[in-house]
């Protein structure tokens, strides 16, 4: 059958024949929008001098550029009136659910990563990368503790002449709540549910580091590799990203930024469900 898509009255997310998200249709326009998981090998330095530190708890230092995880994703599509979901399996240790709830103007991506394999004795740092047709011209915006958005420019610092030794991690910034790119037409923002490293290494791209497992201490003090385990195997992490795509026009009401801020409040301070079993305690009429 033709390729899969999920959505609601506001937006539709399309998937290509390999199971990857590849386009989004919103307000009558369709834009390229891809998402994929990739990983960096962690650098194994001898920690002797500063320029030869390993990637570890204190620093992110990839050994080379990103590597792909898979070319084909197995998917299962689940559709209902309240929510439509695509359950993706990238490989044995990376999966994700992409869902669109009824009436909502954002896409929710619930990722699940781990245990990160290390039988090749190489630490790995897993990222979720978004690619769009936005001409971001080297600029991207990262939040500052969930508040002001700071404008970042790739390979550049405002207050000194940058000699960039680390082309990837030198462009990574702390993303506590949101990272965004825009041009004079469109804006892409990704909200995260915990502090992550993030960047925009190519125009139109955003990436967030979701999980890492490293095998050598980076000699900044803790004296231990960042190699968290549970039940005798690597830690499994699960979290969410919320994605907004839309017009970057500032005269729209409400602007996309305003919608992002409302959603940020909702997802970081969600309604708290308390439950109590009432099997033989309370009938529905008693409850009323």
């Amino acid at each position, binding site marked *: 059958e033709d390729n899969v898509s999920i959505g609601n009255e506001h937006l539709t997310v399309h998937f290509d024949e390999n199971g990857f998200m590849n386009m989004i249709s919103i307000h009558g326009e369709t834009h390229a929008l891809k998402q994929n998981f990739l990983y960096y090998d962690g650098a194994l330095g001898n920690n002797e001098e500063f320029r030869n530190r390993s990637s570890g708890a204190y620093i992110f230092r990839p050994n080379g550029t990103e590597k792909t995880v898979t070319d084909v994703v197995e998917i299962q599509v689940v559709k209902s009136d*309240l*929510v439509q979901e695509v359950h993706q399996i990238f490989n044995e240790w990376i999966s994700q659910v992409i869902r669109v*709830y009824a009436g909502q103007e954002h896409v929710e991506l619930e990722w699940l990563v781990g245990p990160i394999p290390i039988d090749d004795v190489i630490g790995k740092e897993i990222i979720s990368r978004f690619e769009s047709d936005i001409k971001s011209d080297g600029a991207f915006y990262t939040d500052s503790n969930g508040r002001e958005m700071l404008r970042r420019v790739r390979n550049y610092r405002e207050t000194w002449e940058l000699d960039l030794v680390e082309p990837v991690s030198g462009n990574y910034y702390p993303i506590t709540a949101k990272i965004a790119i825009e041009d004079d037409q469109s804006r892409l923002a990704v909200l995260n549910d915990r502090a992550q490293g993030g960047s925009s290494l190519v125009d139109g791209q955003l990436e967030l580091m979701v999980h890492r497992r490293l095998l050598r201490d980076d000699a900044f003090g803790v004296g231990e590799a960042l190699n968290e385990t549970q039940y005798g195997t690597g830690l499994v992490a699960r979290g969410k990203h919320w994605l907004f795509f839309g017009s970057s026009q500032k005269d729209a009401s409400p602007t996309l930024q305003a919608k992002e801020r409302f959603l940020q409040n*909702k997802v970081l301070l969600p309604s708290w469900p308390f439950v109590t079993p*009432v099997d033989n305690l309370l009938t529905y009429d008693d409850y009323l």
Partner: protein
Amino acid sequence: EAHLTALRDVMGVMQHHDAITGTEKQHVADDYARMLYEGFEACSVNTRSALNQLAGERDTLKFDWGYCKQANISACVMTENSDNILVLLYNPLGHSSNDFVRLPVKEGHYLVRNDRGQTVASTLIPIPSSVTDLPFRESEATHELVFQGEQVAPVGYKSYYVSKDESKKSLSTAEMRQ
């Protein structure tokens, strides 16, 4: 007050940069998790008594309110093993909210009703196999019951009665395609 102070003490320790950035040794990180858990557990007594007051506490009827600590792996002993549960949504924001609720349950037919006698639209979504296959996940939940909390007032709450009822079909069962 002693419970709240216990959690305040823990949050005081969590101000350390190691606790925030994860640059502590593994056994220290595990100890931070233990301290936080104990602080939360201590304060669950406070939330339970507050919720019982809100729900109109009666001597005969005290609800053992809890929250699903393993919702992040789609597991919850209370919602998986009860045919009738009360769900109370507390909205901490300063404006109303209509979040979607996901309750880990076994397969079956569920009915969600609000406090005005109306049925709330709900659906059953299968939990992905990559979650149900997690080796350390000891849960019998195979699905999540999804419904949307109606406009919960700012700093307010709304309750729902969820019942498992073989005779009734949940309003919309999801259509599946591989």
